[in-house]
Structure formats: C-alpha cells, structure tokens
C-alpha cells in the first residue's frame, strides 16, 4: 500500500494553509504529522479522506487518484479530532449503524472490553463524558480491519490506563503492516511509536524523517527541545 501526496495546496478564503505539499508513504508504519496549532495537520488528513477539497494537487493510493472520490474510504479508519456523534443515539445503536453502513466484518467486542465500555453501551451519546466519547471514537475507528488508519489527536481526554491501551492497540495495528497517520501534541507518544515525522510549518513540510534525524538536525537532546527550537 502506497499513499502519495503531490503538490497539494489549500486555501480557506484568503488564508493559505497548505502551499504545495508533497510526500510519499510507501510502506507500513507509523507516521506522525506534527506542527503548531493551525498548521494544517487536520486539513491534510481530511484532504486524504476527501472531506476537504484542495485547490490543486493529488492524493494517490496505490497509483489511483482518490481525492474527489469515495471508494477508498472503505480502506481507511478515521478518528476525527473532534468526536461529534448524533446525540440521540446510544453507543450500541451508533456502532450497529456504522456496521450497517460499512457492511464489513467488525470486531468491536474486543475493543469494548479493552476500553471497559460495557457499562456505557446502552447510554445516549449525549450523556457520555469527553474521554468516554473518545473511546467510542476509538472503537468506531479500529473495529474494521482497515489497511490505513488516520488518527487525529487520538489521545485527547484519555486517562493514563486508556492511553496505555491505545498505544498497545496502535502498535498492534502497525505490526499488521498498516499505514498509520497520527497527529498529536504528546511528544512521548511520538518518541515511543513514530517511525517517521512529517513536520508542517507555514504551509510547507519543514522536515520529514525519523526522530533521531530531527534531533540531529536541530542539535538538541530530545524531541521536545528540537521542536521548541524550530518554533522559536
């Protein structure tokens, strides 16, 4: 599986968010998309999904242009940054609705157990706490066996135990050879998981490479200081 992004530009009104982005993900692994708030991380992920329409450029998956189409979403699990669900449904109803729409084999049971969600299954989504909603978000994303995972701030609101579980889960999926794109501001997650960093800054890719390469490039000891140095 290969994702290749070429020459993507995106403006919202007169705000230019992406100025011709290029990168290839040509093997399985965990790719961390980093950058300050508003640098366009969510935007590029949504362009890959076809939810945001770029002014120019192409997204190709296995040689096929996919932006503006929808079929490729069969192979993508997407965890949105802001989990918004129809409020009048229960967790169970939501899960069965998505299964019904996708018509693919799903393994939600293991995930429900992993994140201790059994007590909440019959509750309305509007009554759930922020972190619990995020767990629902995680279950919906991981329950299908998608070769590509796009995770936009998956850790938001999770307690430490759930965070550990999530890390295990991501690692597990990586071992199946999936392409995992992840944005996060939690650098320790990047250090422990990411094979590669894509650092967005002012509409361009400032850096693409491993954590070691980045610390070497900036001459700092760790990722945190390297990034602080870039942003100064």
């Amino acid at each position: 599986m290969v994702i290749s992004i070429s020459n993507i530009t995106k403006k919202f009104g007169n705000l230019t968010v992406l100025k011709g982005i290029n990168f290839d993900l040509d093997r399985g692994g965990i790719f961390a998309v980093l950058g300050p708030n508003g640098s366009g991380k969510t935007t590029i992920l949504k362009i890959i999904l076809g939810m945001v329409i770029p002014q120019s450029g192409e997204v190709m998956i296995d040689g096929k242009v996919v932006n503006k189409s929808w079929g490729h979403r069969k192979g993508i699990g997407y965890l949105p940054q802001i989990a918004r669900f129809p409020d009048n449904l229960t967790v169970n109803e939501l899960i069965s609705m998505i299964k019904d729409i996708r018509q693919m084999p799903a393994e939600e049971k293991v995930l429900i157990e992993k994140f201790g969600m059994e007590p909440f299954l019959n509750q309305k989504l509007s009554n759930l706490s922020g972190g619990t909603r995020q767990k629902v978000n995680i279950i919906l994303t991981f329950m299908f066996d998608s070769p590509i995972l796009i995770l936009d701030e998956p850790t938001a609101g999770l307690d430490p135990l759930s965070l550990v579980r999530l890390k295990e889960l991501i690692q597990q999926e990586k071992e199946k050879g999936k392409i995992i794109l992840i944005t996060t501001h939690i650098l320790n997650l990047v250090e422990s998981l990411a094979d590669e960093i894509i650092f967005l800054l002012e509409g361009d890719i400032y850096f693409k490479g491993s954590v070691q390469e980045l610390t070497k490039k900036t001459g700092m000891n760790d990722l945190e200081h390297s990034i602080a140095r870039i942003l100064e």
Partner: protein
Amino acid sequence: MISKVLKYSFSDLIRSRWSYVYLVFYLVLGFTLLFLNTNLSKAIITLMNIVVILTPLIGTIFGVMYYYNSREFTELLLAQPIKRSSIFLGQYLGISLSLTISLVAGLGIPFLIYGLFQSSVILDFIMLLLSGAFLTFIFVALSVNIALLNTNKIKGFGYAILMWLFFAVIYDGIFLISLVLFDDYPLDQFTLVASLFNPIDLSRIMILLKLDISALLGYTGALFQKFFGTYLGSFISFGTLLLWVIIPVSLMTRFSNKKDF
C-alpha cells in the same frame, strides 16, 4: 447507499417531536374544516389556501433546521465510504418524505372518515396533496441549498425565511405593482412567464385548474386557462413544478461536492 442514509435520517426524523406536531396540526385542521362545513369542495378550497402557504414555510424551516442539527451525523457519514451526493440526497429525501407523510396522513384521515371515497372530489383532493408534496420537496431543496452556502446558522435561517417570504408574499406584491405600473402594455405573456417562476403561484393554478371554478382562478389562472386550456395548462404547471424540484436538487449535489467539512 442513498437508501441507508434515507433510512437513518427518516427514522431520526419520525422520532422527533416536531413531525408529530405537524401531523397533529393537519389532523386538527382537517377535522375542524370538515366539521364547520360538511361541504367537501369548500373545505378543499380553504385547505388549498392554507396548504400553499404553510407547506413551503414548514419545508423551509425543517430543511435548514435539519441541515444544521444533523451536522454530526453528516460528518460521521462523510468519513464512511459513501458518495457525497448520496449523503445529501438521502437526508433530503428523509426530510421531504417525512413532511409529506405528515401532510398526507394528517389531511387524509379526516377526509377518509368524512366519506371522501363516496364523493366526486377525490381527484381534487389528490391534486391538493400532490401540490403540497411538490411544495414540500421544492422548499426543502431550496432551504438546504441556502444552508449549504451559509456556515453561519443564524444567517442561513434568516435567508431561508426571507426566501419563503419572497415567494409567499413579496413576489405577488411586486407582480401586482408592475401590473399597475405597466397598465398600458399588453401583459399577458409577462404574467404567464412570471407565474412559472413562483412555485407557490404555480401550484395554486394547478389546483384551481383541476377544480375548474372560473370565479376562483384569478387573473393568472384565467390566463393560463385561456392560453393553454385546462389540460395543457395543468400539464405545464406540473412539468414546471417538477423542474422546480430537479434544478435545486442538482444544485444541492453540486454545492455539496465543493464544500469543505
């Protein structure tokens, strides 16, 4: 895939309180009218005047309201392997169908009980429901377009209400003023064309042509009859109403395809 989206938005809508309020309103209206005048024909004419104003208003309000309130559902669907146009068409059909069902059931039940099938006005009644359905489908489509073009909820709602006001009230006002102002010119063609551009006028004409009561046809209706005759006139109003559905719906798929979510 449209059918899946339709299924979920329809079941969401018929669970909503407002659909029942709307249904009950028509039930009460139907029973009251029939109770007050047992003459079915007269009741239909009164109903027509209410339906051609009310169905567009309710369609407009429900269209924008559902669009803005179901953003979560829409965003969830957008991440699934579903074509964008299917998402919006499915939701559009969900709203329009649930409103149409409220209309048909709400008016149909009282009329059935009062012996509609034994009477000769059944076709007139069906024409009334058909016009109401058309107006619902048209105004839901128009208002969803307005909502798609306005991220700001308040603005979208305002424009949608203005749009309804325009077709329900202002349009006829402008029309009458221009009739007075250009009194010296032959205005028949102008009048005919002008009525095609207002779905509310058009459906009123369609019903009145069917009722075939010349006293009620009004200036535009009478012209329609004179120009096209009853049959061609009905056919033209029907066809134009159909265009009034098709064009906004295709605009809807175009706007939705260009939008960022």
